């Protein structure tokens, strides 16, 4: 009797399959890739940088409204890779949570606390049938008072880790292979090296050279712990530095 498959619903809601897998969570990961964007995050000695592609599908679209980089508080940034609508609700809830934290406890929400909160919320969606997992991988960055620059990645399964460097999206695995080679000996990148490693990783993996309006870059630096999206001019400077270096 093969009623052991959960009546065939194991692919539709988050219940276990016979092999002990959660298909809905695995499909959520596929949805992240289906968005067709790759993102990269790199942590340096005193800064963190995240980079993502900026694909504007229609010339009539207002380019400034297309963004995957969201400030959660003045000091915390979030890069969302995957389904934009899911990303927006996650960001909205995260902003609310961070503001309440500041009000309740009197100090800014640390990076790892935000990452854990996002991951715990994602876990609820993997266990309760009434809500599907979100098709978003979130990279959270900030400067921690005790530990310095921090980069966390949270995925639809509810996992979250701190990273020295990481990637998400379509070419995630290729990017991680590239970054593993670069970070093998635990280098302590300066701010410029951090940004340039992130951008050149993206260029190498996608095998194209970018113009400043085709990527978005967000940074936090120890000397100025505010989360900032780089302007076109700053991105151009880094792109030029990379091409001169090669």
């Amino acid at each position: 009797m093969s009623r052991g498959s959960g009546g065939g619903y194991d692919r539709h809601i988050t219940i276990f399959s016979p092999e002990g897998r959660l298909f809905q969570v695995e499909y959520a990961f596929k949805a992240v890739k289906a968005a067709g964007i790759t993102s990269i995050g790199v942590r340096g000695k005193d800064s963190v940088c995240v980079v993502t592609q900026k694909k504007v599908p229609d010339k009539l679209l207002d380019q400034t409204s297309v963004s995957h980089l969201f400030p959660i508080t003045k000091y915390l940034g979030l890069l969302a890779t995957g389904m934009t609508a899911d990303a927006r609700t996650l960001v909205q809830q995260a902003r609310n949570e961070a503001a309440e934290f500041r009000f309740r406890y009197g100090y800014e929400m640390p990076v790892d606390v935000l990452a854990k909160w996002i991951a715990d919320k994602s876990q609820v969606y993997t266990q309760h049938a009434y809500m599907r997992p979100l098709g978003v991988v979130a990279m959270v960055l900030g400067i921690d008072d005790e530990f310095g620059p921090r980069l966390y990645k949270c995925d639809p399964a509810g996992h979250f880790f701190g990273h020295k460097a990481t990637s998400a999206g379509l070419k995630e695995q290729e990017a991680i292979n590239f970054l593993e080679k670069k970070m093998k000996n635990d280098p302590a990148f300066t701010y410029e090296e951090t940004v340039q490693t992130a951008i050149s990783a993206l260029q190498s993996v996608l095998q194209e050279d970018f113009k400043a309006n085709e990527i978005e870059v967000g940074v936090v630096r120890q000397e100025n712990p505010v989360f900032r999206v780089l302007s076109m001019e700053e991105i151009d400077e880094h792109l030029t530095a990379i091409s001169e270096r090669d």
Partner: protein
Amino acid sequence: MGDSQYSFSLTTFSPSGKLVQIEHALTAVGSGQTSLGIKAANGVVIATEKKLPSILVDESSVQKIQSLTPNIGVVYSGMGPDFRVLVRKSRKQAEQYHRLYKEPIPVTQLVREIAAVMQEFTQSGGVRPFGVSLLVAGFDDNGAQLYQVDPSGSYFSWKASAMGKNVSNAKTFLEKRYTDDMELDDAVHTAILTLKEGFEGQISSKNIEIGIISTDKQFRVLTPAEIDDYLAEVE
């Protein structure tokens, strides 16, 4: 606990009388990283593999062994996110007990409450069972104790146990090596040797975690330096 649209349970009996969702949850546990626990004469040790998906992951940001109270610790095999939920609920329950009785919660009571939560999720509407098995290690007025809790909510006290990928080899190894009068230090060595049995790659202080509690009733996770010392002794 029943969710609005789902007033019916997703875990239901099959014609042969089995709760298949629980069986699948156990399969999920069985494909998780190996963990084990050993009860010694004067304490308990719990240990687990800590294999991270990439060298880019900052291993200091990951701690698989968690403390629930100052004298009770826990480790898991299976799904990390589910484990975090159980840790949070258990800590709250331990704290509520303390607030009511002005006493630290006994190990058996906490284990019973965790197990009750896990059982709820096998019967309530619109939820799936937890994909983790837990090893709870504690030291209270009844001495050193080690409990294993499964996704079904059933729990047993063990002298030594293992869970996860390498469970059968590990348990056979433990059966041979276990003695009732083992000291905590011997137990830590045995734990390391058991992990080493099925370990893929080179064992080091960066890819295992060990937690101990002894007569001082303070549960703590060993630092990488301390693990290195034990590893050197085992060589």
